[in-house]
């Protein structure tokens, strides 16, 4: 595979977000507009400079409404990516592709929702109408039996993983405790100053066995936006450029949406392997070159899978890899320094990309020292995406 032409030639130059809450009191569109405006301000550009917009197909906020709200004027590129949180890093890839191709100079990627006070993903899909199309029919397999929520979809794979690898609920708890430890020192995190113990993780109620409440990410109202442009333009802007060293999407063999239960085994996320292969080939780097990681953590088990698929450890060995403080700040591979989606906010992975940007800029609240490269992943259990972001050098 040849290197992606945008890789190393494009950069993230602005990030902006609303507060992360449980009840924003504002429309989702208003949240989107606030975050996009904040990201444009952070980048030091004007709304009229923006000519491209990318979001998730699950986002309810039309790009044209945001463009009108902020007086952006004409757009030459607009794109949406499917598969829920799997889209997150893919939005950055789409933006970089458009910039590198000369289709748009500045592209804003965004995600906004009232996912706590409005439509809660954790409430289940039982109310969805049984339409005669393939997307509805996919759920036909699961709705009548009561497998209705993302937690249940992940749990059905995770039970097999725990059984086969010997990983335990306490190993899952290690991820939750770590995220909450990092969130506890991040004032923007919902769980600021609220760390948890392993005992609290184990005592938290079952959501879907084998997942406890504290294995599940929170639900959040909020918005995050990110501005992408060329490396050359980035060097003239106020923020320290954050280079898109690699950006990739991946769908694996036997891929399904959250329910890939029919593959050879349930012990991997082949789609993340597809992403990882591209990230390492494109960047010319490998796991050992990463100074930190932001791994998508809607549910704790898939963090273990990702460490294996990205090559940080061998298959089935994540339970050992995560021990001994390896993922803590100061450890070998600091992870989710903002607190992740369990601790900071659930913004479909976009807040994780923003944290990676702050880490590369060097001014995160829980900053990793001498950080040069960081890997970021998007939603797991679905066709997904990933990034390697680096300092300008």
């Amino acid at each position, binding site marked *: 595979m040849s290197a992606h032409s945008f890789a190393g030639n494009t950069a993230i130059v602005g990030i902006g977000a609303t507060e992360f809450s449980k009840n924003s009191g504002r429309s989702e569109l208003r949240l989107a507009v606030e975050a996009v405006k904040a990201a444009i301000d952070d980048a030091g550009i004007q709304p009229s400079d923006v000519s491209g917009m990318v979001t998730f197909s699950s986002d309810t906020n039309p790009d044209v409404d945001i463009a009108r709200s902020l007086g952006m004027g004409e757009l030459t590129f607009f794109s949406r990516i499917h598969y829920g949180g799997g889209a997150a890093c893919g939005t950055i890839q789409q933006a970089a592709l458009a910039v590198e191709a000369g289709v748009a100079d500045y592209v804003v990627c965004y995600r906004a929702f009232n996912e706590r006070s409005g439509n809660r993903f954790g409430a289940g899909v039982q109310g969805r109408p049984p339409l005669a199309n393939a997307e509805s029919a*996919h759920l036909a397999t699961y709705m009548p039996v009561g497998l209705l929520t993302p937690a249940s979809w992940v749990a059905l794979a995770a039970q097999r993983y725990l059984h086969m690898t010997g990983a335990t609920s306490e190993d899952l708890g290690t991820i939750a405790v770590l995220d909450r430890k990092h969130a506890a020192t991040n004032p923007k995190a919902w769980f600021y100053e609220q760390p948890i113990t392993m005992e609290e993780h184990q005592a938290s109620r079952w959501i879907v066995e084998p997942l406890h409440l504290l294995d599940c990410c929170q639900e959040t109202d909020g918005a995050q936006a990110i501005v992408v442009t060329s490396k050359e333009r980035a060097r003239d802007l106020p923020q320290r450029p954050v280079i898109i060293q690699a950006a990739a999407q991946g769908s694996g063999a036997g891929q399904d949406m959250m329910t890939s239960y029919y593959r050879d085994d349930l012990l991997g996320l082949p789609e993340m392997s597809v992403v990882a292969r591209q990230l390492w080939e494109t960047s010319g780097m490998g796991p050992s070159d990463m100074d930190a990681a932001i791994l998508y953590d809607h549910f704790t088990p898939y963090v273990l899978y990702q460490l294996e698929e990205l090559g940080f450890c061998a298959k089935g060995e994540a339970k050992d890899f995560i021990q001994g403080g390896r993922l803590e700040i100061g450890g070998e591979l600091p992870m989710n320094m903002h607190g992740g989606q369990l601790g900071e906010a659930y913004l479909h992975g976009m807040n994780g990309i923003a944290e990676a940007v702050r880490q590369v800029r060097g001014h995160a609240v829980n900053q990793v020292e001498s950080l040069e490269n960081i890997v970021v992943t998007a939603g797991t259990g679905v066709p997904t995406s990933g990034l390697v972001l680096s300092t300008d050098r």
Partner: protein
Amino acid sequence: MTQDHSHSLAELVGQSTGPPWVGLDPVNEPMIRHWVEAMGDANPIYVDAGAALEVGLESVIAPPTMLQAWSMVGLTGTLERDSQRGQVKEIEHPNDRMMRLLDEEGFTSVVATNCEQEYLRPLKPGERIAVSSVIETISDVKKTGLGVGRFSTTRSDFYVVDDSFPEDPEGRTNAITSAEHVGTMRFRILKFAPGAQAPTMPPRPRPAITQDNEYFYEGLKAGKLLIQHCTECGTLRHPSLPGCGACGSLEWDTVESAGAGEIYSFVVVHYPQVPSFEYPLPIGLIALDEGTRIVANLDLDVDSIAIGMRVQARIDKLDDELSLPIFISAAS
């Protein structure tokens, strides 16, 4: 539930079902003999005075389980309150009122569920037994295997009374308070709305049917668990797709699964609780012996479920539109 009489039913709790009633015959040896013969109880102290004396009793005693027999109204008898009611129609006794209210709630069927008796001392021939009953509890509406309904417990207290016991209802009510208490019985019934499915449980979410997956649900309605089969290369596949991932052929038919397999993975759902299901809700990923996997409900004790457990499909008709495979232990 057609009407909700929760409040009126609550007022009945603690009320007496009528004045004390005195049994037609005193405790007597012929009835005891019939009873022990029918029951096959060979204990001699019920029929042989010598045997009773040997264990320190003054005479034979009645089997304790006959407690209620001494207060019964006989094969064709009726409690006097029924004849009273004929005269004063406005009076409705608490027990009748409870049954009427439960009928009005739609709980028209009845089944006895428990009977507990407590014996304070043995009863001897010649003793007259009176009984006084009170409605002790009426439950909230419960979901049961028989249907939705309410449980009611009536407590009856049994007393030994002598010939001076008054005949008029009011006199009996007063006199019972000083009579000798010899036993208690709690009799529990379920008044319920008959029906296989509890009416408060809404139907399961409907599966979306397309031309690609219709065969599966139609097959289940006909009692068959079908697996898609590529007619080009023979590969089986599930869930349904229009094409074969192994060879790309769009030609297919189906084979019927024998329904045997093992649990490949499983979950137990606790939250959120959707009204169409009962929780904790076990769901399995079953590796069928034919080679495909299927997600299905498990009719298994939650604590018994394990990866590798052998299971067998049973096809349940949930309603007119939907039948689903439910997996049970292959050992059962």
